[in-house]
């Protein structure tokens, strides 16, 4: 038998079951207003915080699925406020919209617009979730007539160890991925390090003090305020704040090469700022180690044929740029495409965008591409049409109702005033 409460008005009020209470909570306006407010605060704080920490770091802090709670900062000072992470706030908003905006909402022609609009936004949130978990971004800097089947992943580094052959050419490298390095971050606690062993190499590589962003300083003998790591060959690394205007990470770390034959270990400093490999010899053979962005293998090759660019006359403001490329489809058939600003090449879930153009140097042309794979790439277009249809339908319905109401109000008043005027005129006569 279900429990019953008697309200003050005398009506019998059924006590709600727990699932109903949960549903009521998730479908409530209160939750909608709260989540929207929290989301608004997160967006606002994150916008201001970007000026200090840059876009990538701020986005990671506020919007990544690993951010359960956020303590916002303004000008680098913490605010005494704990907010849920934006990803999880969006999850709550998603549930709220499904429960309140689709299931609980009154059904009828009057509510058709909001239901459709809610559906569009729900789909947009789903798009966001899919994008967050599945999209990968990279860039490819190409040189005229060069062929490329890889790109560099944005915001990720890697450590590459390789051997030089007898003609001093690089052999295929052993790659240590970003995920294996990022937990070796330098902090004031216990030093963290990891030793990597390679099947065919006569040495191990020990990595420690990994930095997201560090600058190489020359040790001039003066006492330093803070020395994070060792001084190697007169230089050392120090963690520095990322430049928020460029938002580029200068990944760096300390590395020790430990030969298996017991010979002396070599200490090295690796940094993303150094654009060439460091070399060392073990057992008379030459090896190299470097820290480029993480390589991303493409499903097809791209060859840059031509790169066009123009500036407005007398200025350095670009007016146009495009690239002619040759690429191979899945059947190995060569195809030619022109990639322009706002007109990318889409194929097999990979999209190639013209991102930059450099004026030719010594007659050689260059183009920069951004490569993205995102299964939800085109979903926002559908979301847009659905939301627009719902909103415009509702808006027009409400507007016509309002206009009708105003006209009804003014008509009797007009006719009344006319009658009064006529009566007045009659009386005057």
């Amino acid at each position: 038998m279900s429990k019953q409460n008697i309200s003050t008005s005398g009506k019998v009020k059924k006590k709600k079951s727990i699932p109903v209470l949960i549903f009521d909570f998730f479908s409530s306006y209160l939750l909608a207003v709260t989540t929207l407010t929290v989301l608004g605060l997160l967006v606002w704080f994150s916008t201001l915080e970007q000026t200090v920490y840059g876009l990538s770091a701020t986005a990671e802090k506020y919007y990544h699925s690993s951010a359960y709670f956020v303590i916002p900062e303004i000008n680098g000072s913490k605010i005494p406020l704990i907010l849920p992470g934006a990803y999880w706030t969006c999850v709550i908003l998603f549930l709220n919209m499904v429960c309140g905006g689709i299931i609980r909402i009154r059904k009828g022609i009057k509510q058709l617009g909001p239901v459709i609009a809610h559906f569009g936004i729900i789909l947009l949130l789903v798009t966001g979730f899919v994008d967050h978990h599945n999209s990968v971004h990279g860039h490819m800097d190409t040189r005229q007539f060069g062929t490329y089947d890889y790109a560099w992943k944005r915001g990720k580094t890697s450590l590459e160890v390789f051997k030089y052959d007898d003609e001093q050419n690089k052999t295929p490298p052993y790659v240590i991925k970003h995920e294996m390095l990022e937990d070796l971050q330098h902090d004031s606690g216990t030093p963290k390090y990891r030793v990597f062993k390679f099947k065919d190499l006569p040495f191990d590589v020990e990595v420690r003090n990994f930095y997201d962003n560090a600058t190489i300083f020359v040790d001039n003998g003066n006492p330093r305020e803070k020395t994070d790591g060792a001084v190697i060959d007169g230089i050392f690394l120090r963690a520095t704040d990322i430049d928020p205007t460029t938002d580029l990470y200068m990944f760096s770390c300390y590395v020790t090469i430990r030969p298996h034959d017991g010979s002396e270990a070599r200490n090295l400093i690796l940094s993303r700022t150094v654009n060439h490999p460091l070399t060392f010899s073990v057992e008379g053979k030459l090896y190299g180690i470097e820290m480029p962005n993480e390589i991303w293998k493409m499903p097809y090759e791209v060859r840059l044929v031509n790169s066009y660019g123009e500036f407005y006359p007398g200025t350095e403001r670009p007016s146009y740029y495009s690239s002619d490329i040759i690429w191979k489809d899945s059947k190995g058939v060569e195809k030619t495409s022109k990639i322009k600003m706002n007109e990318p090449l889409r194929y097999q879930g990979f999209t190639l965008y013209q991102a930059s153009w450099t004026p030719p140097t010594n007659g050689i042309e260059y183009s920069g591409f951004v490569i993205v794979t995102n299964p939800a790439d085109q979903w926002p277009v559908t979301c847009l049409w659905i939301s627009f249809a719902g909103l415009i339908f509702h808006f027009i319905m409400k507007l016509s109702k309002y206009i009708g109401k105003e006209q009804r109000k003014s008509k009797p008043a007009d006719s009344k005033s006319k009658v009064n005027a006529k009566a007045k005129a009659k009386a005057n006569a």
Partner: protein
Amino acid sequence: MNKKLRILGFVLSLALVIAAAIYGVRGIIKKDKLSVVDDYQAYSKVVLTEAKSIPVQDDGRVKPLQTWAETLMLAMHGQRGMDIQVNEKKVKITPTAWLLDAIFRPEQADKLPTFRVDNSHILEEYGMEIKDLRDRYSMNDLKPYLSKFDGENRLINEKIKKSGRDSLTLEEKQMTELFEAISIYLNLRDPFAINSRDQEMLEQIGLQKVSDVFGFKDKILGFAKQSPNSSPTQLINGLDSLSSVFNTLARQPQYYGKYSNLPLFPPTEKDNDTWFSAGQQYALIAENNDQAYQNYITKRDKFLKAVGPVDDAKAGEIFKDYFEIFTTYIDKDSKPFPKYVQEAIIQQETLTAKLNSNNETTQLSAIKEFKKKYANTVHSRGEDAMIDTEIAHNDRNYFNNGLAIIILALFVVVARCMLLGTRFDRTFYWIAYAVTSIATLYIIAGIAHRSYIMDRPPVGNLYDTMPFIVAACLALLLLIELISKDGIMLAVATVLGIGGIVLAKQYEVSQATDHLSPLRAVLKSNYWLTTHVITITLGYAGGLITAAISVFYILGRTFGIIDSKAVRKKLTSIVYGMVAFTLVFSLVGTILGGIWGADSWGRFWGWDPKENGALLIVLWVLIILHARLGGYIKEMGLHCCGAFTAAIVVFSWWHVNFLGVGLHSYGFTSADAMGALWTFYAVIGLLIIIGIVVSVVEKESKKRAKLEKNEL
């Protein structure tokens, strides 16, 4: 509250709005004390009409000289035009006249009060006598202090290099701005107007102007081969003098020409689209020839050192070799000036000479000839298509005139308020409606005209958004007024319109750049500019209308002006409708922006400040709508939230641009602008507090009245 007090309060509020508007346009209406330039020779109207359509290339496009002159004058003088006193008569100097003087009649231009200085104390430090704190100075006023300025400029540049621009004090920033203006001004003048010291030298060797240098090779060689009666030593010394004189002569305009900024000449090659400055082209050749001269000196000295002391006999022996070194320098190492450069310099010299004649016919014919000389080239390149229509656009001054009409409409609205309930009420209502409609149409015509000139949709940069938002607000409010018919929307429209145009004017003066400039490659998409940019801008307009009506409601209730329940209800319905309107356009605009971002940069959403700003508007209006539907806010709550919409819109529209990060950053920061933004937020905050207090007080008095009624 006493009725009289209420009216006083409302009038004071209105006065505050008008005072703010006047503060904004003070630059336009403030009459400076006229500078007396008695010997100024004004150009006639026909000369100026002819001159303003001279095509020039600036900021990536070909435009009439008038547009260029307006931008430069705005940057230096802070206004488009200046008044001076000539023989006790007021003379108006248009931007075109001022620029013609700056280029071709520098002696006249130097007397004009060109340089606006907002804080004259910065000049006082150099021993200058100053008049007002905010004043205008001529080049003649500043000339005696230029070397001191130069020294200070170097120190400031070193500081910038060391600690960045942000480290500068306000005074240093103001000094830097003045240095930049002086530098631009000096680089405008014709580099071929040789100063008097050189004129003397020119006359000595029988040459009158720089263009005479073009035949220098033949002249020098001929001169060197003459003088059969001279001794070999005399001949050698003569060659030395010749080389030195001609190098000095050829080099003289190099220093001015190098930085000359007069892109008056179209290129001769079809595939080249960059116009050239004759001074710069001259400087390039002169620089090379100067190097050739230095090489000649080294070679000659080496030769003479090897020869040893030279007497007449020795001079005779070595003359042949010496002459060989000389002719190699003159004939082979020195580059001739290309024909197109020679022609340009001759044109510029002719124009300078004739414009200084102070004879209308001579001046007019000079300008006509100059235009004719390059007309075919410009026409064949299709670069003159928009010159005439741009002049018409400039002359119509749409937004300034639009502002005047809206101010007139505001006066009619105020007059109508005074006549409420009288037989003139409706007449004044329709006059106000008509005048506001005319202002709206005028501003729309201005936007359409700009759009036609730029050959793109109406909104492409921050400046474009301002007249567009004003036009959208006026048009929407006029439409709502057709339904509500009580005149409130007219009052709101006029105040919003004045505020918007004043903002546009202030921004225009502060930036002093050509806002008709072509767009960057990534923005060059008429499809996206039409869909995303227009939609999001309409969303801003919707948000601002919402806020303006809500502010009217809060002030009206505070001062008891709107005590009728029906009016309150109507205003609430309108605000609710406008919130919905804002949602439709902001949401659609924001998603469209994401889709554009996905097509251009490969990501739908990047949490860039501008994107976040747009999202904040969407979130805020959603909060309002859901809070209203959930019953968390009542009438006053809705209006307080409505007023806060202005802060959110301003954050998205303006504030994010000053953050200096993100793909949409406009790359400028201004302490004044930030100050204005924070003041705006504070005013909105204050209004919301007032609204809450009024609501609480009213509730309490209602409670008390109810209690009293019950007691009775």
